[in-house]
Structure formats: C-alpha cells, structure tokens
C-alpha cells in the first residue's frame, strides 16, 4: 500500500534485485566472526563465575601456567588502571568491569580469567586448572525484589542524579515524563482499569556466537576482526580498555550472524587483545552458546503497572504507567525508553509515565530490538484491549479514535511530524485477516507498536572507477541485506545499474566514524549518507562535463546517468554518460569520489499494527499461532522484500518472547537454561507464514522518505499475542512468557 505519490519517480528504489552478497552467503564462503585464522594463532578461553554474587578472594593461575600449551593468562590485573577520558570513566569502567570482573563476581557467567593456548581444547583444559576462591554473597535476580528494602546491594554509588532520595541503591536511573492532569483525566472516565504486568528477560538469540581474532603488539598497534554491529565503538572501547590510541587499533567487521542489538558492545574483544599483547601472538576467541546466554546481553525484564481511563465512546481520558526494568549488574536497563514508548501511539490529554533502571545479579542487559518498547506495549495494549472488551468496543476503532497523528504532542514530549499510525490501523481494518471468521478455541488480538528510530553519526564514501562502475564504502555492518538497499539508493542518484555498484563495509582505518547498526538507522542514515555522497560525486561529474563543454557548472544537470545541459540556454550537447566522464577522469582533474559525513537527525518515528490469531489447547495450555499479519509504516521501502523480512523477523521474535522464551534463574541465582534446548526460540514448525503489509507514509527527514523498519516490528507482538491468547482462553494473561504451565494454571484458576 504505497501512500507515497512519488513512487513513480524512482527507477531503482522499490525494486527487489538479488542482494550483492548473496552468492557468498549461499556457498559458505562468506566470512563470519569465527571464520578468520591467522598464522601462529592461539585460541583463547574464558573462565566464568559459577556464582551469582561472590567476592573473589584469590585467583591462582600457577597450575594452568605450567602447561606447555598455555601461552598467556590474563585476569583483571592485566587491565591496568587506564585513565579513561574525562566524561567516559563511568561508561568504560562498566564495560571493563563486565568483560573481566574486578574484586567481585556480579553474576553467573561473569568473566574471571582468560587463557590463550595452542588449541581450543588446550585452552579449555587449562581453565579447569585455574583455582579461584570465592566468598559467596547474597544475591538478587528479580526486579521487584531488588528494589525492596534490605535487598542485596549490587554496587553502592551506582545511581545517578535522577534517582529520588530514599530509593534502594539498586535503583540507578529514574525517568518521569508526561503532560496534563492524570487524576482529573481518570475522573472523567467511564471505566478505569489498572493492572500489573510482568515480562521475563529474553535473549537476542542470534545464531552466531561472539567471535574475534585479535593481534596487539607491545608497540600499541593492533588489528581486530570481530562480529559486531559497529566496529568504531569496538575500536574506541577496546583502545580505552587496553590503554592504546584509538587510531592504532584497526577493527574490521566480519559478516555478522545476527545481532538484534546484542552485538553493540564488547565482551571478548578486549580480552583477546590483552591475551595477544601478553603472548605476542594472534588470539582467537569464540564464545560457546552457554557463554552467550550467561554472559552477553539479554534484554531487561520488566515489572509494570498501567492504568488507563476510557469513556464509553472509546475516548482515552488519561493514562499512567510505572515501569521497573531490571538490566543486570550494571546501569543501562531502558526504564526511560519503556516509559516513553508506552503511550506514544495515542493522542492523550493527560499522561504520566515513570521508569526505573534497576540492577540485579544478572548479566548486563544489552539492547534488543526497540529496547523497552515491546514490554511497554504489552502492558498498555493489554489494558486497552480489556477496556475495549468491557465496553464492547472494536479494538481498531478505539485505537483509530485515539491515534497519534501529525501535530500530536507525543506522550514523551515533542510534537509528531508526519507519521503513519492511522494508515497502519486503516490498513489492518481493511485486511481480510481482521474480518476472517475464527474457529472454536481461537482468539484474535491486535496491538499497535511504536519506536523512535535513530540517526547517529555516519560516514559514507563513494568512488568511481574508470569503467564507470562504483565503489561504495559504508560503515554499518550488513545484518539483513543493507548492501542491497545502499546500492539501490546509489543507483537511483547516479543513474547506473544496481549491479555496477560494489558495496563494502569499510574497516575503521578507511572511513570516518560510524555509529553502530542499531536504532533501525542503517537504511535511514547510511542510506541518506549514500544519497548525499552520490550527489556529491554527481556534482563533480557535472563539473567535468561543464569543463568539457565550456559552460558554467550550474548549467549542467544529471539525468538518467548522464550529464546534460540544464536547459535550452545552456547550449546543445549530447548527453555525456557517467562512464565517458570517468574514462578520462585521470586527464580531466583526477579521481572522482563523493563523501558525506554527518549526524542526520530526521530519523522519523514509526508505527505498526499487528493482527494475530491464536489457538489454545484448553487441556494443556499450549498456544499455537495460526495466523499473523504485520502492518507497518516503512516510510519508503527501498528493497521491499528485505523490508518484509524485517517485519516477519520481528514478529517471529515477538512470538518467541510471548510464548516460550525466558531466562530461568534458580534459587542460587544460576541461569538454568543457557542452551537452545531449553531457551526455546521458535522453530520452523512453530510458525505460520507471516503476512505483511508495507504502508508508505514518507518520512520528511529522508530524501526518499525512508523510516527505519528493523525494530518497530517487535513492538506489537507481545501484546497482540497476549490479547489473542486472552481471548481464546477467556482469561487475561498478565505475565510473559505465556508458557503452557502458566496458561493452564490461568485456565484452572478462572475455570
């Protein structure tokens, strides 16, 4: 459903060519994190705490060091107390503390020591010979428990200025926002529902474990190969942690086997560099799946209270929410984002939201696809669903009635520019899915979802070859086909075939700084930068034509891949194709390139509406998702097939989160399910086909109207599925995941 009236102006954008890296990826030749080898390479392995919270009394590495295959061992003592740059002490200290424990192990899986040996087996064997004496400390892994008086303190003094006095030291950030008078709003309502919701931590679940190959010499020069969503942040962080100059560490991003936010920071990379420096040999570290679950970022877990008032006609009079987010043993849980997203889809007169960032003895949370928003939507959209049910109102009509639109003062402050929520709701309402009959035992749920999207620091460089082909260097790792989108946008500007453009993910030494591939920013920001860089090159191409024709530069324009006179007054010249200009560029002024460096600010928020049908087995509590439709505003779909892929992937991850995925901690604070056998992500036979509708309401902040699409797709599923299951089971589900024991127990308690 293209609402973009400019669609016809595009020649390449909006088409669906094969991805440039397709061949590499179907033949096994694409090099991912663990696929790099270096001469003389050692294998690293990391010893991890078996305790949730323990003082490290002593680390004795002597037995391991005595092994002939062992070439280096590092502990925290090998990360000298590097003076971090002013303003970054806290951030880097947290990262350092997470990659290698100081005096206290803060969670099950926290790194304690590391070994480099001549083989992976030898390194693993050596770990068994490192003796660590721990003094176990009381621990806490639940967010509500961690906020209670008397809860074990993870770290004194970790809270920032935002936390009101009198709160537990585990509360480290506080957010409050909103407008209007919620109490007055609730008083106007015909029905007010307040309810409590809980979500467990889930893991991003990328199939590729973290892997890196590091070389660092005593001269402070290093090379690092790793799977990451952003190699400049890896460069900056590792350099700081190792006490070397940023530019002396060249980081190359491998092909990345999924990230979803989880590969936006460092875990093993500084450790491999430290081992390499000590052994003076390249060191490769590849995490096991167990390590990925125990020691990399899962998402935050949440405990939430949401209260909404509604009139009989469906008008929302007020909304209020309290969101407590647990983010592991360090600050960073997205209490603020959760709160800010919670009511963003709605045009509210009275709204107030509070978010808490709470520390516990769990691994440091990392971003996971729209961090905070899916949980927030689960709480808010469940309450709206219940209000609709009790007032006998159609859930889409009620959302349309209250939907945010251009000019709405957002629940989190600013006024929305052109947005597409209403369009997604209208498309959902018109979709055959919404009116299809349900079978007995089935329920239908819908939900809206919101995400901010992000711009971020971006550099792109584009250079032309003599034969008229194009080399495009971008700095955002390609997680889901972004090379194709970049090539399409460059082709659009230059007017050269898509196939003539080679897109490379440049290393840190060959391009300016780029933020991580996160915040749904790649197609937006790297895309915008690609367009601008291509336009920069076009300007130079036009200048060459102008010089050749002997007319002013502004008398030349670019059309269909050729320089042409800009109008009848400019003179009569045959169109000069790009390849003809580049063929002689060595003689006409030298190489032609285009560049763009900036921090684009117009990312453009995005909205989605999902429809889901679920079937509940009343004897076992098992849920089957039988039909799923994603409707989302993409602004402009550059490569529609990969946009659909983002929609479908977000929905599938949401289905896993809603139904079966969860971090299960036992009474000792140990993670019970650090493997794919028991951390149950959806398998092929669990899912139906996932239908998609691409709505295109152009983003005014992007030349082609692009909005990021990667994250919004995971915002509605938790709530949409909970609403469907609640309808099918005829009992409100308030806790995720809605695993069969929970659903059966809910059925029993209500039946």
């Amino acid at each position, binding site marked *: 459903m293209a609402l973009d009236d400019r669609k016809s102006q595009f020649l390449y954008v909006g088409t669906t060519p094969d991805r440039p890296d397709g061949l590499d990826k179907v033949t096994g030749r694409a090099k991912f994190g663990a696929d790099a080898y270096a001469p003389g390479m050692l294998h690293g392995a990391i010893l991890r705490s078996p305790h949730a919270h323990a003082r490290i009394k002593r680390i004795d590495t002597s037995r391991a060091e005595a092994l002939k295959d062992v070439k280096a061992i590092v502990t925290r003592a090998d990360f000298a107390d590097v003076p971090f740059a002013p303003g970054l002490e806290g951030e880097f200290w947290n990262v350092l503390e997470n990659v290698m424990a100081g005096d206290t192990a803060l969670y099950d899986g926290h790194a304690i020591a590391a070994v480099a040996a001549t083989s992976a087996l030898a390194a*693993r064997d050596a770990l*068994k010979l490192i003796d660590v004496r721990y003094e176990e400390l009381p621990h806490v892994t639940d967010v509500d428990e961690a906020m209670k008086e008397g809860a074990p303190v993870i770290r004194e003094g970790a809270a920032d200025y935002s936390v009101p006095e009198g709160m537990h030291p585990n509360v480290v950030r506080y957010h409050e926002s909103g407008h209007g008078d919620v109490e007055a709003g609730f008083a106007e309502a015909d029905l007010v529902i307040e309810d409590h919701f809980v979500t467990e931590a889930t893991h991003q679940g990328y199939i590729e474990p973290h892997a890196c190959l590091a070389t660092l010499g005593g001269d402070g020069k290093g090379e690092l190969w790793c799977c990451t969503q952003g190699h400049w942040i890896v460069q900056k962080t590792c350099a700081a942690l190792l006490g070397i100059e940023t530019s002396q560490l060249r980081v190359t991003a491998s092909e990345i086997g999924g990230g979803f936010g989880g590969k936006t920071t460092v875990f093993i990379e500084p450790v491999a560099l430290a081992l390499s420096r000590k052994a003076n040999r390249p060191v490769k570290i590849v995490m*096991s799946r*167990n390590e990925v679950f125990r020691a990399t970022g899962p998402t935050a877990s949440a405990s939430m209270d949401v209260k909404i008032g509604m009139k009989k006609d469906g008008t929302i009079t007020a909304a209020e929410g309290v969101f407590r987010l647990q983010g592991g043993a360090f600050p960073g849980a997205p209490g603020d984002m959760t709160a800010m997203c919670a009511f963003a889809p709605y045009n509210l007169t009275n709204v107030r939201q509070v978010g808490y960032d709470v520390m516990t003895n769990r691994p440091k949370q990392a971003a996971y696809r729209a961090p905070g928003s899916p949980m927030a939507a689960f709480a808010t959209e469940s309450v709206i669903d219940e209000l609709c049910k009790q007032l006998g109102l159609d859930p889409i009509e009620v959302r349309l009635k209250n939907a945010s639109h251009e000019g709405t003062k957002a629940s989190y402050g600013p006024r929305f520019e052109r947005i597409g929520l209403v369009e997604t709701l209208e498309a959902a309402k018109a979709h055959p899915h919404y009116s299809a009959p349900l079978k007995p035992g089935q329920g239908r749920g819908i939900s809206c979802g919101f995400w901010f999207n992000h711009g971020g620091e971006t550099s792109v460089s584009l250079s032309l070859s003599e034969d008229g082909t194009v080399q495009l260097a971008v700095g955002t790792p390609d997680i889901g086909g972004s090379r194709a989108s970049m090539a399409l946008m460059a082709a659009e500007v230059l007017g050269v075939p898509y196939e003539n453009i080679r897109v490379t993910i440049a290393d840190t030494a060959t391009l300016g700084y780029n933020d991580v591939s996160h915040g749904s920013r790649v197609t937006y920001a790297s895309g915008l930068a690609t367009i601008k860089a291509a336009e920069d090159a076009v300007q130079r191409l036009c200048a060459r034509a102008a010089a050749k024709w002997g007319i002013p530069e502004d008398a030349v324009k670019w059309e269909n891949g050729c320089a042409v006179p800009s109008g009848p007054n400019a003179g009569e010249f045959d169109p000069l194709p790009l390849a003809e200009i580049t063929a002689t560029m060595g003689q006409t002024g030298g190489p032609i390139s285009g560049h763009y460096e900036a921090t684009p600010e117009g990312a453009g928020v995005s909205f989605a509406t999902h429809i889901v049908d679920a079937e509940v087995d009343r*004897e*076992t*509590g*098992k849920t089957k998702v039988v039909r799923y439709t994603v409707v989302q505003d993409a602004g402009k779909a550059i490569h529609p097939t990969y946009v659909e892929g983002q929609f479908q992937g977000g929905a599938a991850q949401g289905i896993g989160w809603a*139904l*079966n995925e969860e971090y*299960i901690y036992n009474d000792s604070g140990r993670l*019970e*399910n650090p493997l*794919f*056998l*028991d951390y*149950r992500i*959806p*398998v092929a*036979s*669990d899912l139906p086909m996932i239908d998609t509708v691409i709505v295109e309401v152009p983003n005014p902040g992007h030349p082609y109207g692009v909005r990021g699409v990667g994250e919004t797709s995971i915002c509605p599923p938790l709530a949409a599925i909970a609403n469907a299951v609640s309808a099918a089971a005829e009992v409100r589900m308030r806790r995720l995941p809605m*695993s*069969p*024991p929970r659903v*059966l*127990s809910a059925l029993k308690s209500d039946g």
Partner: protein
Amino acid sequence: MQFHSPATFVEAAALAAEAQGVTRFLAGGTDVLVQLRSDMVTPDTLIDIKKIGGVRDIKLNDDGSWTLGVAVSGAEMNEHGPLRAAWPGLCEAMDLIGSTQIQGRATLAGNLCNGSPAADSVPAMVAACVTATITGPQGERTVAVESIPTGPGLTSLEKGELISALHIPARGENAGDAYLRFIPRTEMDIAVVGAAVNLRLDGDTITEARVALGAVAPTVRLVPEAAEALIGSTLDDGALEKLVAACSAACSPIDDKRGTIAFRTEVAGVMAKRAARIAYARAKGETIEGHHG
C-alpha cells in the same frame, strides 16, 4: 581420552571391563557428544560400537518379532515400512527425539542408556515389552528394558556391560500402540510429559493393555492401574476418565525449568488419554499418523 572401535561386542565388553575411569559407549553420540562438548562428562575411554557387524540391521524374525541392532538410527527405523507399520507408536516415539539431524544418529539403545527420565522412546519400549540383550564380561543376558534405567543418568548395567541388541515382540493381531508427549514447541524440546499406550482388542473390547509414562518420575513408569482402567472397556468415556486418574495418580514429578509438578500431573493424563485413542484406532486397523508436539 582413548578412542576405540572394536569389531565385536565381546571385544567392546573386554575394553570396557579393563578401562580405568569414566567409560562411554558411542553409538549415535547425540548425548555423549553434548556432554563431552559442555565438559559435563569427559570419558577416559570412548568405545565406538558402530564398527561391530550387524549393529545397523533391522531383522524380522520368523515368529514375527524384531531384532534391532544397537546403532540403528531413528531415521532408519522410520524408513523401515514394515517395522513402522507394526509398531507405529514405538517408531514415532523414536522419531520425536530431536531434529532430522539428530534422527540421523540417535538410537533406541542410546536413548535408554542415557538414563533420562524424559527419554521419548523408553515409555514406548516399555509399553511394547521390548527386551535388551546385554553383553558383558560374564557373557550375555536378556532383560526387560524397564530394568535398565535406575534413575536420572543411571543404569543397572555393570562395568563392562553394554546392550548388544534390542528385541521387539511380534505385533500380532488387533493391536496397536501410540506415544504422545507434551512439549512447549512443536519440535526440538525434551518431553515435559510422555505417555505410551499399547493395546490389543477382541472386537471392540480391550483385552490387553500397557501404559507407560515418561518425565513424571525418576525413571519411566509402567502404570498397571492405567492398563486395568482400559482392559475390558471399549475405550468409553468412563474408561478414559479412569485412565486419566490412574496416570495422574502415578506421577511423582518435580518442578523444573521444563514444567511444574501440577502441570506434569495434569497433562500426563491428557497425553495418556489422547495416546489411548490413537492406539485404539490403530488396533482397529485404522492408519493414524502420529502427532508432532
């Protein structure tokens, strides 16, 4: 770790009898390698039994019974039309274990000797009265499979002993078996509860029955009370109700990451009831495809 590939069971038993430390036999390896990779169990001696003659054979004996080699994989069992036709419940129970990839390797004997209370094939084997030949330093003996697992990860096999063949009885007339398990997903999970039912009919009336449950006790549980609830009935609602009650009563499960006591106790009856319906239909000559998940 020492790695051996003996050519006979006698040789394998001798190697195991003489070995020091931890010994494991390697058939499909789908449990042994997981334990090795995660440093849970690193055997001092690993004895690959797949080079022994006949370990991949599926043999139909003259009396209608079957002899299975210990390295027959789940995939090979399920590709064997006559075996699958005779014992669909047993074959499906094996087929439910893990993925297509796991099916290429996993074996009945391995599933049995791993000693998991949640092993899918074991309730089906117990219901089917499968027996095992054990070869050891003292020679051979044959035992009922239910006597082999003695607790989570434990078996009654003595040092030097290994299973050298499995025997499935003749199917006979008017009989059918079925196995169902409960898992949260549709594939790839360990059974939260498993139920196997093996029946014989005379006309519409059940004359013989065996019911076995998995994942509800430290070992797979044969439930005679559940069988009694079925015998003499035509699988009417009353009989099914008694079956459900008997199964739930036979459960002494644990709370763990995969399920709760209450859930397992409840769903054991549900699985048994559903499996009984399939077994009954099969005994009546209907072809019922098993259910994944």
